[in-house]
């Protein structure tokens, strides 16, 4: 065995042209994982144990994994991977998936009140996309051997988190714009590098998501632009939204690098490609001129251009608030998770019914 991941080039065999095929093996991998209780960890009947007979041992797997990551190759579901790598991915992908479905709520809050039919259609499509993105991501997590049920259960019981930003309320229509521009903007800044994440299924899900997300940010920006150039009341509504969403958006990049618990290892594994602070700075640099074009002000008196660094300096982030919201003391933590739990519980009879119907039909067919 020379590599951990399927090689590029002619060796891939017929029917697997570029952009085709690799996920299908992921599909089967997942099936195997489910059937054989994570046999993926020990592929091909415990080859690892045969190390004593002169066959490749566990250290060979590990070095092959390291080599693949170093060579910027993708790790695929049934490849050997360190347990901690798998655990980190499951945690991160699950949190990402949870964020998509909890993130539907603050925006859906305005679906019934969207002020024009055009905006109503845009918002509905966006909220729908988020459900879709949640599905892509749960699918990616499942390739690692963890089912969606288990992940949802962890979300509902508070054992897994979602992005803290969604614990803030949408108080006016302009908040829908602020979420699109700032929250989705921050998310995209975070996500674009994830398209090159070392884990194949996650990277592929992110490619799809980023492609679809580009409209989310734009519609938010356009929404704010119309408000900013509209009546005085609309302009004030837009400014108020920016005032409330700016700082929480900066917090979306996570704690500063020197306090970030998982960053270093994730960078080494190429799950993460840039540090929290690096991405945060990139986001600020992007937003400052965009805010100016909107005719709106970012609520930071310390914001100034640093000629030497070639970046915008910005003020201190209130990490106390970040931690409080993360711990459950945000304005909407309880509301969001309750709604999520209720939807799941209220839907149990529907899921049961469909499963029962399928069983009945199978029994009838086998008779």
């Amino acid at each position, binding site marked *: 065995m020379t590599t951990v991941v399927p*090689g590029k080039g002619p060796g891939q065999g017929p029917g697997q042209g570029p952009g085709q095929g690799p996920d299908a093996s992921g599909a089967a991998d997942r099936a195997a994982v489910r059937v054989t209780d994570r046999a993926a960890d020990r592929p091909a009947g415990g080859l690892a144990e045969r190390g004593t007979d002169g066959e490749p041992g566990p250290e060979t797997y590990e070095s092959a994994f390291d080599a693949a990551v170093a060579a910027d190759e993708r790790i695929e579901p049934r490849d050997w991977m360190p347990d901690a790598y798998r655990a980190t991915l499951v945690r991160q992908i699950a949190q990402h998936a949870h964020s998509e479905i909890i993130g539907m709520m603050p925006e859906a809050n305005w679906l019934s009140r969207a002020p024009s039919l055009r905006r109503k259609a845009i918002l509905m499509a966006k909220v729908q996309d988020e459900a*879709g993105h949640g599905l892509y991501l749960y699918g990616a997590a499942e390739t690692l051997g963890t089912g969606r049920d288990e992940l949802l259960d962890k979300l509902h019981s508070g054992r897994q988190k979602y992005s803290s930003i969604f614990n803030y309320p949408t108080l006016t229509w302009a908040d829908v714009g602020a979420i699109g521009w700032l929250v989705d903007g921050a998310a995209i800044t975070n996500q674009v590098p994830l398209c090159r994440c070392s884990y194949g299924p996650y990277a592929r899900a992110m490619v*799809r998501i980023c492609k679809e997300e580009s409209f989310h940010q734009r519609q938010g920006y356009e929404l704010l632009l119309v408000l900013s150039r509209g009546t005085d009341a609309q302009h004030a509504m837009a400014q108020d939204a920016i005032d409330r969403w700016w700082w929480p958006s900066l917090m979306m990049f996570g704690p500063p690098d020197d306090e970030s618990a998982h960053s270093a290892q994730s960078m080494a594994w190429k799950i993460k490609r840039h540090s929290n602070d690096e991405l945060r700075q990139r986001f600020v640099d992007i937003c400052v001129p965009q805010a100016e074009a909107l005719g709106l002000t970012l609520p930071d008196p310390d914001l100034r251009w640093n000629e030497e660094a070639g970046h915008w300096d910005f003020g201190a982030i209130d990490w106390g608030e970040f931690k409080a919201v993360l711990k459950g003391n945000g304005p909407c933590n309880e509301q969001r998770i309750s709604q999520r739990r209720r939807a799941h519980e209220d839907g149990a009879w529907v899921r049961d019914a469909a499963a029962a119907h399928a069983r009945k039909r199978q029994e009838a067919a086998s008779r």
Partner: protein
Amino acid sequence: MSSDWPLWEVFVRSRRGLSHTHAGSLHAPDAELALRNARDLYTRRSEGISIWVVPSSAVTASSPDEKDPFFEPAADKPYRHPTFYEVPEGVKNL
């Protein structure tokens, strides 16, 4: 519980002349709903004209360890690939 809803793999043909390509997965209680869910999820931006759904449990895959015996023999047969052959400049329809 939805654990009774098995996982399905979705393959989409994006347009005529191309083969079905794996697009992702989803949960559904049966094949009919799997197909409909796949249509809603994976072709809502007109990404496809034909869909296959396959129970994930029905897919048999080569294991990574078999990869070498499975695929490496092909790696030393570059003559299977058209780029192996030099064609004089200007020659068309080859």
